[in-house]
């Protein structure tokens, strides 16, 4: 998914909201909830905090909708707000408790061995991701999971392209190191 991909109907929905149609916003929330939620969960590493950040991003975006200069790119604009919210929430959460998504329920409920292994692997990945610095985790997720171009990442994060490339490189190296060690445990 590139940040420049224009969601059909986003501009129309934004214009309807600006004209006072509050319900049109619920369509945008439903449209972006899961996609942005995935980023928030991986970035913050805690589902409750991630949903709080996501909710906050949606509310802030609504209240500042007049500042969305290009309604057709509402998704990219909203993404920028969420990235910022995740930074704030993540910093707060890391002071409060150690982060990572540990899906014990999913692990216990896994019916098959391969499913259990997949859940266990996801847990290992979550722990490894939590060991990265927030900057490296952010860059890795935006580049490899959200499939953004470096120019798009620079626009969202405010960081330079060379710095972002370095962060992605470090994240890859660090993940490889952590996960190789995990596989030898």
């Amino acid at each position, binding site marked *: 998914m590139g940040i420049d991909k224009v969601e059909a109907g986003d501009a129309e929905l934004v214009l309807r909201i600006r004209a006072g149609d*509050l319900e049109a*916003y*619920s369509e945008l*929330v*439903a449209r972006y*909830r*899961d996609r942005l*939620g*995935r980023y928030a*969960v*991986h970035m913050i590493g805690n589902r409750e905090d991630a*949903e709080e950040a*996501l*909710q906050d991003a*949606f*509310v*802030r975006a*609504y*209240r*500042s*909708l*007049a*500042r*969305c*200069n290009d309604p057709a790119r509402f998704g990219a*604009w909203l993404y*920028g*707000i969420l*990235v*910022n*919210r995740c930074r*704030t929430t993540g910093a707060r959460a890391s002071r409060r408790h150690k982060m990572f998504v540990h899906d014990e329920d999913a692990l216990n409920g896994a019916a098959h061995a391969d499913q259990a*292994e*997949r859940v*266990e*692997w*996801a847990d*290992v*990945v979550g722990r*490894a*991701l939590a060991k990265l610095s927030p900057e490296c985790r952010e860059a890795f*997720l935006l580049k*490899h*999971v959200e499939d953004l171009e470096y120019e798009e990442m620079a626009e969202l994060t405010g960081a330079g392209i060379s710095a972002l490339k370095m962060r992605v490189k470090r994240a*890859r190296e660090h*993940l*490889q190191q952590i*996960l*190789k060690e*995990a*596989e*030898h*445990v």
Partner: protein
Amino acid sequence: MFDQQEPGEEEIVERVVRALKRPVYIDRALDARVMSEIARPAPAQPMTRRAWTRRAWPWLAAAAALAAIVIARPWSRDRTPPQSGALQFVLIAPQAASVSLVGDFNDWDPTRAPMRAARDGVWATVVSLSPGRYRYAFLVNGVEWRADPTAPVARDDEFGSPSSVVTVGGRGS
């Protein structure tokens, strides 16, 4: 632990990415919480001590000596938070055809606080604010966002355009 064979470095990253790209379930109740929240009036943000502020000026008094106020900027030496009530916002923009004041207090809606042009390109408007911390900006000619050059920059702003901060104190604070 997961594979019998020693995986290559690229393969590890690919497996990580595959795991992270799987859909993540987000509580559908979030939609209702968002819609409930946005139906409420926007709250002012909590005040911060470090925010610089400027003194409130009643509109009529300010209008009488607008140019002098802009040049002298008496509030720049006074960091006492302005009191809640009518606050005047001023921007010098001689080339502008229109200027609006937008901020947290009016949902960033440029139609709610259009500024009036006085002489020498001085634009001004007055809004009533309750105690709190607000981010705001000027929208020039309907397209150009400008922060207030006399106020602190809003560093916690994430909307992609410059903005400023004003902190309003309560009566008697």
